[in-house]
């Protein structure tokens, strides 16, 4: 049976090479012309603990981690017990026969990968034995795997040839075991390779790259899952004249460091997760009040408190929109795909410059470390906006009133004309503290009016004539889209609304919301945060929530949306 889409999951303990196996299969498949998306889940510890890593391979772009698993590789009994329910009806499990045994008659077979690997003369080739078995089950081209092995292990060292030979042999031994089991889960259709140049990249790397492409030149950060890889990325890449990157002593130092840099004229960013974001609240208030350009990226994990550091949740939305005391709504970009991470990283940097203030870029664990092959962005096409500045002879003051009818006046930069005090207390035109009502009124209005300058983020509107509109945000876009497509195929009259910018919302999106249509928001939190915010603005929104720490399964959304709209559906 030909299939266009397979999910292969490796489950076991951290440190068993689960991510390496999924990544190897993903790269081999992407190289063969397929679309791939990986997804991992692991405990917040370096070694050990239950973990899994999977890859979805498809002939069309992959929108989500899928419904179930076609091939489960379960390296211990615990992994088998906890993942077997995710196996699709015709799925097959490859279990680690060196670790445990299963009674005869199930949809599974055992493999002694370590023993077989040793027989090739390379004990470290056990992963390749398993990959060989998987390749047979989905009828994946061995030529591609051989090429993968050859390239991976050609390192210009003596002994490369032996290693390559042993690994190729290991794959064949795995194939033989799978063959003799008699199982197969179908044939993977031949791919149509995209005609554009591709990169394989994670969400955190993509948003970092995007910010740098827009001219980011200052980064300060503190390690925290799942945002640490942004700091590591910057420490490895944000070099060169005029650029600065540093690991500081806390998230409080990070936000204040980028405040200083933003004030001094730099394009500055930090990235953190929920607990660190909470510590940045006061600094974000100052950035808003004193009008200092900067970007704070919040790579969400489960919360509250330490919460679920290595799981997916979309539960920081309200905190991101209103992070600090006082009247504040932050501009907020929430990419939903790896490609959108890149462009949102660039746009967030540009927005901060354009409106001279703080911008929140909201990502998620579900995007942070997930690998995907995407079109290579054209860096020369990324715009680099720089804030307006003052020149000698300008008569305007830093904190003059502004009603939006003229371009936003320039910002004085230290070393140049227009010295002022960037003040967190309410202030007058030059930044001196004042409590006079008219200053509070005029500057409150200026600060909110500036948000009107922020547009240009990606949005999608489809079948907006329908009475019910599905409007996911962030990484729930993918599974929601799969559910939406299946429901439409089954004749459901539903529309689609999606916006990377959650504040301010694009005019076209607002128009649909204002029409009073019923908006259904699938989101990964308990409160139904986005629909609550939409209802607060008077729109007719409701949520479908999930708070398991895992992404939505499209099949579950098909059922839950179907129930809401009274359409009987088949999954």
């Amino acid at each position: 049976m030909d299939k266009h889409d397979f999910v292969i999951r490796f489950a076991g303990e951290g440190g068993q090479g689960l991510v390496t196996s999924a990544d190897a299969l993903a790269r081999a498949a992407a190289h063969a012309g397929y679309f791939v998306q990986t997804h991992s889940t692991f405990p917040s510890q370096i070694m050990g603990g239950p973990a899994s890593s999977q890859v979805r391979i498809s002939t069309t772009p992959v929108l989500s981690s899928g419904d179930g698993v076609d091939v489960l590789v379960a390296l211990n009994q615990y992994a088998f017990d906890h993942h077997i329910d995710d196996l699709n009806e015709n799925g097959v499990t490859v279990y680690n026969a060196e670790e445990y045994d299963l009674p005869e008659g199930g949809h599974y077979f055992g493999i002694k990968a370590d023993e077989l690997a040793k027989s090739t003369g390379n004990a470290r080739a056990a992963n390749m034995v398993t990959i060989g078995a998987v390749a047979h089950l989905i009828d994946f081209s061995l030529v591609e795997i051989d090429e993968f092995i050859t390239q991976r292990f050609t390192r210009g060292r003596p002994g490369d040839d032996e290693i390559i030979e042993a690994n190729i042999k290991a794959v064949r031994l795995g194939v033989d075991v799978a063959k003799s089991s008699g199982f197969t889960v179908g044939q993977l259709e031949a791919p149509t390779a995209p005609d554009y140049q591709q990169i394989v990249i994670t969400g955190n790397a993509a948003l970092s790259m995007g910010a740098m492409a827009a001219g980011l030149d200052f980064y300060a950060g503190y390690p925290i899952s799942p945002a640490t890889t942004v700091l590591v990325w910057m420490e490895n890449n944000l070099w060169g004249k005029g650029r600065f990157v540093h690991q500081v002593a806390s998230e409080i130092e990070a936000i204040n460091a980028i405040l200083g840099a933003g004030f001094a004229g730099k394009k500055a960013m930090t990235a953190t997760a929920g607990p660190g974001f909470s510590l940045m609240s006061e600094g974000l208030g100052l950035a808003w009040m004193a009008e200092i350009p900067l970007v704070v990226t919040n790579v969400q994990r489960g919360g509250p408190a330490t919460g679920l550091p290595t799981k997916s949740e979309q539960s920081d939305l309200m905190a991101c929109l209103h992070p600090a005391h006082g009247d504040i709504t932050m501009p907020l970009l929430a990419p939903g795909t790896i490609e959108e991470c890149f462009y949102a990283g660039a746009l967030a940097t540009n927005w901060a410059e354009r409106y001279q203030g703080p911008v929140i870029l909201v990502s998620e664990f579900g995007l942070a470390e997930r690998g995907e092959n995407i079109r290579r962005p054209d860096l020369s096409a990324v715009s680099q906006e720089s804030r307006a500045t003052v020149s000698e002879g300008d008569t305007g003051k830093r904190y003059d009133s502004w009603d939006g009818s003229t371009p936003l006046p320039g910002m004085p930069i230290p070393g140049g004309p227009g010295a002022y005090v960037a003040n967190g207390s309410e202030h007058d035109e030059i930044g001196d503290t004042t409590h006079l009502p008219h200053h509070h009124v005029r500057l409150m209005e200026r600060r909110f009016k500036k948000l009107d300058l922020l547009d240009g983020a990606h949005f999608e509107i489809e079948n907006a004539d329908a009475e019910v509109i599905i409007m996911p945000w962030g990484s729930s876009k993918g599974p929601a889209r799969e559910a939406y497509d299946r429901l439409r195929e089954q004749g459901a009259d539903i529309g689609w609304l999606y916006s990377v910018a959650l504040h301010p919302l694009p005019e076209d999106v607002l128009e649909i919301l204002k029409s009073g249509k019923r908006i259904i928001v699938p989101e990964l939190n308990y409160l139904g945060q986005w629909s609550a915010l939409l209802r607060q603005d008077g729109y007719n929104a409701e949520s479908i929530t999930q708070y398991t720490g895992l992404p939505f399964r499209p099949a579950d959304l098909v059922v839950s949306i179907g129930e809401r709209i009274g359409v009987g559906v088949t999954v």
Partner: protein
Amino acid sequence: MSKRNPEYDFAWCPGCGDFGVRRALQVALEGYSIEHEEPQANNVVVAGIGCSGNMVHLVEGDQPFGIHGIHGRTLPISFGVKMGRPELNTVVVAGDGDFLSIGGEHIGPAASRNVDITAVVMDNGVYGLTKGQSSPTSEFGAITTSTPLGKIETPVSPLKNYMAIGVSYIASYYSSKPRILAKLIQEAMNHRGFSIVHVQSPCTTYNDTYDLLKGKPKEGIQGLAYDIPEDHNPYSADAANELLSKPGIPLGVIYKNEGKSLQDRYEDLQAKAPNRTDDEILDSYLLQI
């Protein structure tokens, strides 16, 4: 109100030590600008919150740039200013509550980095702006509005802390002689690395320590403050520690260590940094096995 801005609605109490520190800061900034032939606009004053924080609005004459930011966060903010734009001269002004209590966590990292900024700390041993609560440097047993039965914490010894934590320039002075204080601040600004000028700046309303500091010579009462002897070697950590082990408040330069600043160290790193273009970085993600 201030001379430069009649609408400005803050005033220090008559006799406040901060007047003297303001005068000293102004002279130091002007002096530094003249010495290095730089515009005043190259100077950035980063203030915390408290009576001392208002310093940034009260400097008269040609204006430096200023940040009147967040309670306790002067050091990380000024770190961002300095490392973003190393050519700017960055001076922190903060009180003892701001610098040593809520902001205490930032002194160690600033010292470890040896970031090239100068902190002028105004120590009055009390929270003045909130009307008289105990501060880190209030004496043991001090009666304040938040310690009505007496303070039961040991007071912080700021100068010993700075030594222990590795601050590379430490000076101590009081607010009463602005011209000499100005020289110390300017010298601290010239020091390449993290410098602190810790100033006794009495609060005439809640903790008037003028007599305690200066004594009453006519009545034969010795003050706590004394000039550091001329033979003190500020380049010797041992000499500095010995000085600080004695009672009283020394006036002058306690310690100097002329090593590499964070900027120097960063330039060393830049020299060995991978100088890849953005396109080259992106190409490292190109689909290959």
